[in-house]
């Protein structure tokens, strides 16, 4: 079975500074990887996804993530954050088969400080 670890529960960062949110997964099979963002009292919005191909994936709002198979990581990065990026970010992993195999990390609260 797959599992996801988000090492940082909270990440404070100053506006216009770079940020990296860490995600590690465990799986014995090939997986699909996702990052979602959640603003207060809203649902989850897909930021980006890795299904196959290039290991560097670009998403919405200037975010990108890199799939590293050897380190089983899928870290999310943004070179310059804005106040509006303050939100909860979830990493998720899905195995290639089965409808109930989408697993989420516990989330990272990104707070952008003006």
């Amino acid at each position: 079975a797959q599992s996801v670890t988000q090492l940082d529960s909270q990440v404070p960062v100053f506006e216009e500074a770079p940020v990296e949110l860490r995600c590690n997964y465990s799986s014995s099979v090939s997986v699909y990887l996702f990052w979602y963002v959640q603003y207060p009292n809203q649902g989850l919005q897909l930021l980006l996804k890795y299904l196959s191909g290039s290991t560097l994936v670009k998403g919405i709002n200037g975010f990108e993530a890199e799939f590293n198979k050897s380190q089983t990581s899928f870290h999310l990065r943004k070179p310059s954050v804005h106040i509006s990026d303050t939100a909860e970010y979830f990493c998720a992993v899905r195995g290639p088969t089965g409808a109930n195999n989408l697993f989420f990390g516990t989330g990272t609260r990104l707070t952008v400080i003006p």
Partner: protein
Amino acid sequence: SQTIHQWPATLVQPVGSPLSLECTVEGTSNPNLYWYRQAAGRGLQLLFYSVGIGQISSEVPQNLSASRPQDRQFILSSKKLLLSDSGFYLCAWSPQMNTEAFFGQGTRLTVV
């Protein structure tokens, strides 16, 4: 394009009262459907999923049930709410090929 609707957005219910949360998907057919619960400060817990009409799988034993009366309709129910049922409930769908999931706006349920 596909859209997912979930209602109500907020709900305050007394202990012991029934519950019905509804979710509908537009613009796709035969989606996989999901109900998640998000407790404060925690991640997402999968409650139910469905791969077709009338096909419901439960991930955790609980006070809740789910039904899928139509292809793109997913309902979360309870006969008698408990205080511990409070939380943020999210409906989601994914295509049959099981790639990404798309979420509704969520329902904030407070049981008092």
